């Protein structure tokens, strides 16, 4: 067996030096005249250990990390190629507790394989789902997905199988599969990791979706903040086309499926499915009225499946192992696994794929190890910028769609942002409104105008101007936003605002801060931003 060294090419790993480490390793290999190849794999999702270098030994893969350029020569000297001891040695990768306690179904290959090696993909179970799907009728494929209980992982949690059935039953000359890769929520990066670390699983999932509903064309819409993911998917699609897994004759089945990647242009709202469709059509990303649902009239007015990256990337394993297998993970109406993303002020930030039902506390402490700063945890925001802020006392909430909804929260895409006791929740509430003002598409008045009014009202509350009246006014405003907005941006922005007031009232009753000295208020900054 030839020795291989793995250095992740994932953007997050690269952001802390993985490219430089890979170069340093290549230089050592050359100068020491070793016949070793360096594989650029995806990330295992243990970001506090990045750059995480793995060596393939007869006993399996052994991990070292976080590896700096300066440490590389010493690793060779310490015979890390044989898995020998070194201060950075973490032991067999699969035995690292953070990884060992996970249930990786969607992320089974991420970090294990070379993302752009189709032979790696196939030898690690890839394209088995498609192979099975090609032997089934369209109805049976949809049935399998329905049985699995898979719900949209983008945040809304709508049953995927039902969406597919609607598109399957909609008569049309052309249908589309659209993948929503506009992962704009802060605290989330699972989509990015899959697109960069295992792009073929997304391609396979979309191909199965196309065959299931009778769509011959697919689009992946990726946000422009993800240039690495965009480049990886473009290359993966070219490879899949060359090898006959995409195009006029998918895997020799005689069925067509074409796939295209499109780049967004920096608009949070384009993560909303109808805005995304407008953007794909070359228009302003303003949301559409619903109905009609995209499943009936979507891209270019045709029946369209719009699914999140993780939803689509989970389809291959459901088809491979069966809906029943997948359904056996999870709790209540949340079936299968959730890709939890530990983010923000957290000691061990990273991706945890685990059956629904783990509590927030287990995720943050057992996996995440508490705050990065070492200070007490004060608040967590789950589900992105539209998710509620929870206090310590709600940490025993299980990660389950319904359990979060019961506590006026939102599980969303599974991103967990941890804050220590330096956080000021009045500032966070203000930021929520400010973010909504910056990113509102402008179509409906509650969101377009209400968000700016929200910033002003919270400013007055912070400044202790008619505080009680303004808190009441803010409550009214939130009600208008909740009931009157057309989509989730305006409709859910009251979640972070009202949860902050509910759980952290003391932050809204502090003495007014002294006026800013340099005259550059945050409001001016945000307005001057464009």
């Amino acid at each position, binding site marked *: 067996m030839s020795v291989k060294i793995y250095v992740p090419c994932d*953007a*997050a790993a*690269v*952001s*802390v030096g993985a490219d430089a480490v890979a170069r340093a390793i290549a230089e050592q290999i050359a100068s020491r005249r070793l016949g070793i190849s360096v594989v650029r794999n995806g990330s295992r999702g243990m*970001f506090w250990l*990045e750059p995480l270098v793995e060596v393939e030994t007869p006993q399996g893969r052994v991990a070292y990390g976080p590896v700096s350029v300066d440490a590389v020569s010493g690793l060779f000297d310490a015979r890390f190629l044989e898995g020998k001891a070194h201060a950075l040695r973490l032991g067999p990768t699969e035995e690292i507790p953070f990884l060992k306690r996970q249930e990786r179904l969607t992320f089974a290959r991420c970090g294990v394989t070379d993302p752009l090696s189709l032979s790696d993909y196939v030898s690690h179970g890839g394209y088995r789902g498609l192979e099975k799907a090609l032997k089934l009728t369209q109805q049976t494929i949809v049935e399998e997905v329905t049985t699995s209980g898979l719900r949209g992982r983008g945040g809304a949690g709508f049953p995927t199988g039902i969406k597919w059935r609607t598109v399957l039953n909609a008569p049309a000359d052309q249908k589309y599969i659209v993948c929503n890769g506009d*992962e*704009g*929520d*802060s*605290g*989330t*990066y699972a*989509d990015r990791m899959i697109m960069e670390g295992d792009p073929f699983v997304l391609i396979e999932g979309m191909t199965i979706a196309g065959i299931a509903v009778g769509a011959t064309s697919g689009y992946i819409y990726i946000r*422009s*903040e993800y*240039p*690495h993911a965009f480049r990886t998917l473009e290359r993966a699609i070219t490879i899949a086309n060359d090898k006959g897994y995409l195009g006029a004759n998918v895997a020799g089945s005689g069925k067509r499926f074409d796939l295209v990647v*499109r*780049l*967004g*242009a*920096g*608009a949070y709202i384009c993560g909303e499915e109808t805005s995304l469709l407008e*953007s*794909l*059509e*070359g*228009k*302003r*990303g303003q949301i559409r009225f619903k109905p009609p649902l995209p499943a009936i009239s979507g891209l*270019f007015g045709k029946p369209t499946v719009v699914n999140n990256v993780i939803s689509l990337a989970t389809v291959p394993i459901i088809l491979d192992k069966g809906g029943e297998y997948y359904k056996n993970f999870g709790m209540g109406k949340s079936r299968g696994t959730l890709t939890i*993303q530990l*983010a*923000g*002020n*957290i000691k061990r*930030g*990273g991706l945890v794929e685990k059956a629904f039902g783990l509590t927030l506390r287990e995720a943050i402490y057992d996996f995440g190890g508490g705050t*990065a700063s070492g200070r007490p945890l004060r608040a967590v*925001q789950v589900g992105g*910028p539209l998710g509620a802020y929870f206090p310590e006392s709600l940490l025993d909430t299980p990660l389950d769609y319904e359990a979060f909804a019961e506590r006026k929260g939102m599980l969303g895409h599974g*991103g967990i*942002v*941890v*804050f*220590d006791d330096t*956080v000021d929740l009045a500032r*966070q509430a203000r*930021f929520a409104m400010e*973010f909504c003002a*910056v*990113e509102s598409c402008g179509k409906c008045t509650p969101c377009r105008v209400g968000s700016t009014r929200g910033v002003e009202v919270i400013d007055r509350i912070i400044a202790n101007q008619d505080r009680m009246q303004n808190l009441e006014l803010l409550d009214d405003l939130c009600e208008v936003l909740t009931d009157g907005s057309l989509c989730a941006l305006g409709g859910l922005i009251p979640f972070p605002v009202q949860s902050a007031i509910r759980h952290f009232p003391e932050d809204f009753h502090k003495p007014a801060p002294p006026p800013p000295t340099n005259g*550059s208020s945050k409001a*001016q*900054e945000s307005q*001057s*931003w*464009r």
Partner: protein
Amino acid sequence: MSKEQAWDADRALSRIRELEHLPGALLPILHALQDEFGYLDKAAVPLIAEVLNLSHAEVHGVISFYHDFRRSPPGKHLLKMCRAEACQSMGCESMIRHVEDRLGVHLGETTEDGAFTVDAVYCLGNCALSPAVMLDGKLYGRVSREVADFLIDSAQRHA
């Protein structure tokens, strides 16, 4: 580092023509032109409108909707700094203020010498390694004030 060409209507038109056949071609065209010239010159609007059979207002409306599209040339280096929640929890606001003070600009502005354009972004998907910034298309994590200074210094050396 920017390597864009000066605005050239003929080149622009040929890029537009290459892409006009795409369904929903406007965004790919705008991206292509911005990649080529670093910004979208106002002279591009009638060219695109003509080829795609859209009104000037429709093209302008799309350009102005998306935060990425710029209507004037950016600085030599483009620094995007994340100010979303995960980065806030790790102190991005004070790091951003430090960069603003050092470069003498606010978010959304370009330094007087044209060396840096500094923009806010909301999430770069590097939320386990916050604070995150992107400099000239390269992502960086755990960006303290010192790391930010180092990145700016390095960019200046390669100006």
